[in-house]
């Protein structure tokens, strides 16, 4: 995007998209197409612009979708991984060809700035290609101990029907990851997008079906809470893949544990649930690197990433200097419309988020001090929040414990690395963390102690790449499954072992 020809290509794609709005996102259940029910998604930067009009699926719709999915599974579940990988490879190819259009859609439907939106499309492509490759590998039987007279084999078979309950903050990439993990391993998938991003969800499903995924095998049930609840409780759902808030995640885990009448299996939940991510700055850190990384990790996409930096834990020796420079840097941070190149952050997703940000700011000015706040906000109705740094909070402040999911970061003074590690360990969350240090021994110590799923050293803490930084957290941040990593697919399959006696009449035959 540093080339002007690329920027003008993206602008044309956006213009073309705008002319075709709203996107229609009806439920897709088997070969039938549902009604458009008045569920809409809007441009967070300009809420009078309707981006998609969607179906509002009911429990009944979900039941029908599960029936279709079971039918689909009977066929899809017995294809070979290679056949499925070919189909999924076609989906990735379609995404490569329509990269600019998909990027424009993300810019519009969730107010994500260009660079982040394009990175998300690339991540979606990476997920599809990675899991397709991985699923072929999964078909090879793993090595078991073999002794003369017996043949031992283990294979992994798809579990059945996967329910995907997706977030709005990475509406394409995270949805693609969870959905394709299910499809690549031979499961049928029923996909419920976030309320705020049905348009992109519908596009994902269209791409998969165009690539050759049969209609029964990938179902689409947009809507509010109802379809999500029904999916979680439905006796014929085998695996639930969820990314979202901790509260909803815990509810899903609890509800899915209940055994319904006639249900003969245990549901498996794969959940990624958010965090309270700390960035530790050691006394010898290079502040020239820390400042841009901290600003980007905290405020990129308006702080709406589960990996976003939420707390800066800064060594006493550099606290004052860092606070001074950070204050200056934050006042230069530019908030604007997602479609403007060169902004640092865009709007937050909806009025709830904006209100939440305002509430925490209020609390911050009472309990602590607003250290720095970003430049002016754009005019109009968009849901814009000023990026803010808060200091001087008491240890028990809710701001230090709650996930804000908006552009607000706290800064705390720590006496040493030991205290910083203790603070990280005290958190019930363990998703991402960062450390800036130029002492390799300190780096090793923190690595050894840190409970987080993704630790970053001397760089920002967002932007995990498929295959390079498998992503997922521990403790209450998730089920410990690593998206974009080698073990992720095992959650979607069940292992079966066969042992055959190869002796006949005392001879091995």
């Amino acid at each position: 995007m540093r080339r002007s020809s690329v920027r003008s290509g993206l602008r044309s794609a956006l213009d073309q998209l705008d002319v075709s709005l709203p996107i229609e996102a009806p439920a897709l259940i088997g070969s039938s197409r549902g009604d458009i029910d008045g569920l809409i998604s809007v441009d967070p930067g300009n809420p009078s612009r309707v981006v998609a009009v969607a179906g509002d699926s009911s429990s009944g719709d979900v039941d029908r979708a599960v029936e279709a999915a079971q039918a689909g599974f009977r066929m899809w579940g017995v294809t070979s991984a290679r056949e499925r990988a070919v189909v999924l490879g076609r989906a990735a190819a379609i995404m490569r060809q329509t990269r600019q259009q998909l990027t424009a859609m993300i810019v519009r439907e969730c107010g994500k700035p260009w660079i982040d939106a394009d990175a998300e499309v690339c991540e979606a492509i990476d997920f599809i290609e990675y899991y397709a490759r991985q699923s072929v590998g999964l078909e090879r039987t793993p090595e078991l101990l073999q002794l003369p007279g017996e043949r031992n084999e283990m294979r992994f078979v798809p579990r059945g029907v996967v329910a995907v309950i997706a977030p709005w903050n990475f509406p394409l990439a995270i949805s693609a990851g969870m959905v394709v993990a299910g499809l690549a391993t031979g499961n049928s998938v029923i996909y419920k997008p976030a309320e705020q991003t049905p348009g992109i969800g519908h596009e994902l499903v269209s791409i998969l079906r165009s690539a050759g995924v049969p209609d029964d095998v990938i179902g689409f049930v947009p809507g509010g809470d109802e379809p999500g609840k029904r999916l979680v409780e439905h006796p014929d759902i085998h695996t639930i893949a969820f990314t979202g808030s901790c509260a909803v995640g815990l509810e899903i885990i609890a509800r899915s544990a209940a055994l319904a009448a006639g249900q003969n299996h245990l549901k498996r939940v794969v959940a990624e649930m958010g965090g309270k991510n700390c960035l530790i700055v050691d006394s010898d850190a290079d502040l020239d690197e820390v400042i841009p990384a901290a600003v980007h990790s905290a405020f990129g996409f308006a702080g709406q990433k589960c990996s976003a930096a939420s707390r800066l834990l800064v060594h006493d020796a550099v606290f004052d200097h860092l606070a001074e420079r950070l204050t200056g840097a934050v006042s230069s941070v530019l908030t604007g419309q997602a479609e403007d190149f060169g902004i640092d952050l865009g709007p937050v997703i909806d009025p709830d988020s904006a209100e939440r940000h305002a509430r925490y700011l209020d609390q911050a000015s009472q309990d602590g001090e607003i250290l720095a706040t970003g430049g002016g906000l754009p005019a109009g109705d968009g849901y814009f929040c000023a990026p803010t740094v808060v200091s001087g909070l008491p240890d028990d402040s809710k701001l230090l414990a709650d996930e804000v999911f908006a552009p607000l970061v706290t800064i705390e003074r720590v006496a040493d690395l030991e205290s910083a590690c203790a603070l990280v360990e005290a958190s019930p969350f363990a998703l991402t963390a960062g450390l800036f240090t130029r002492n390799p021994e300190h780096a090793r110590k923190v690595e050894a102690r840190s409970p987080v799923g993704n630790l970053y050293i001397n760089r920002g803490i967002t932007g995990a790449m498929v295959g390079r930084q498998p992503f997922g957290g521990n403790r209450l941040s998730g089920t410990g499954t690593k998206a974009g990593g080698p073990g992720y697919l095992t959650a979607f399959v069940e292992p079966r072992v066969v042992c055959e006696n190869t002796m006949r009449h005392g001879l091995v035959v």
Partner: protein
Amino acid sequence: MNTGLNLPAPPLTPAPSEDLVRTNGRRLIAALRSDPALSVARLNAMAVGRVASDPDLRAALFRLVDVTPMCRDLSDISTHLTALLGEIEEPTRSVRLIRGAALRPALSRTAGFFARAGVRGMASRFIAGADAESALDELSDLWKRGVASTMDLLGEATVTETEADTYLERCEHTMRVLAGKMAGWQAQPHLETDRHGFVPRTNLSVKISAMTPNARPDSPGRGVAGASDRLRHLLRVARDLQVHLHVDMESLDLRETVTELVFDLLAEPEFADGPSAGMVLQGYLQDSPEELEKWLGWQAAAGRSVPLSVRLVKGAYWDHEVVEAGQAGWPAPVFTDRATCDRNFELLTRRLLASTDLVRPAIASHNLRSIAHAMAAAETIAGGHDAVEFQVLRGLGDDIQDALSDLGFRVRTYSPIGDLVAGMAYLVRRLLENTSNDSFLMARAGTENLDSLLVAP
């Protein structure tokens, strides 16, 4: 790279004969040998060579250099020294001895002291002083010896508006102090005049990234808007004092911002007749020939009465460009093969020397072959030594600068000023560049047969 422009193919400029290049090269080498400073430079290069041959040790030492200014005291330096040396998987005996000594509490501060002294020593080789005033004596000596200078102000990254303002003040202060003092120096015709007329004595190199916290690769407009007022101010000061202002090129991410800003401002009517100004062309970029054509086209149409100075360099951000491209999945924008890169440098040299009606070329290199080629091309293509200026880096090109001056060429030393903390990024980059296996200086340190270094790439 598709630039999106339909530019005519650059005209082929005939190269000087290999004989002529070799003749010039030998003349240059002969001029080097006569300088006793040579042996010091070569010893330095050889010591650095020992470091270069052990990549783990090299990494450890660069990281130590990088962190030393941030260390709170000698013990802190020593702690980092031992931690960094401890990362080396198969340490040599001497490394083990040093680390063992530094770990002993009684020796820790001493180890820190020597480490810091070593780092400061290295820094003082490359950095001319903390500010313009402290560098003056040295600049004056250089001038007497027939060598000009350009100053570069080292500093923290600019992440706030205040830091950008501070940088601006330092730049202006530097120009005023130096212009004031340099006016009183003796005449040096080969340094002060060329076919276009007078060449300013005072020369300042500036970085756009230091002039605004708002530089963004995906939005040149924002960086341009952020830096405009400050650069305009510096251009005015330079114009009024008759000082040359040169804009450095940084990583590729910023190129569009820099060129847009410079061309926009130089086109403003108040700068039609001055100051003398220029930009840096990086020869390691694969699209550098197309980029140069754009610049020549701009200058031809700009209607300024002053030529555009173009400093041709290889490029100082190679690792950064390759890593960034690799991690983003793009093809590398730089030449990855040394010979191709050197050939491109010579191609660009010839193109510049064929365009001396529009530009003042400055060839910045320590590569004897590249220099010899430029010496020959100045004759055959541009018709004289005054067509070209040579530039070297302080601390790396000391012997070359004297030799070139003796041979009658205009030569300018790039002299950074600033404090140790500010200087680290610069220092680490210089060390990295010149101890890589591809470094010409390494090749030079490793051979007695300098003729072999003059072969065409």
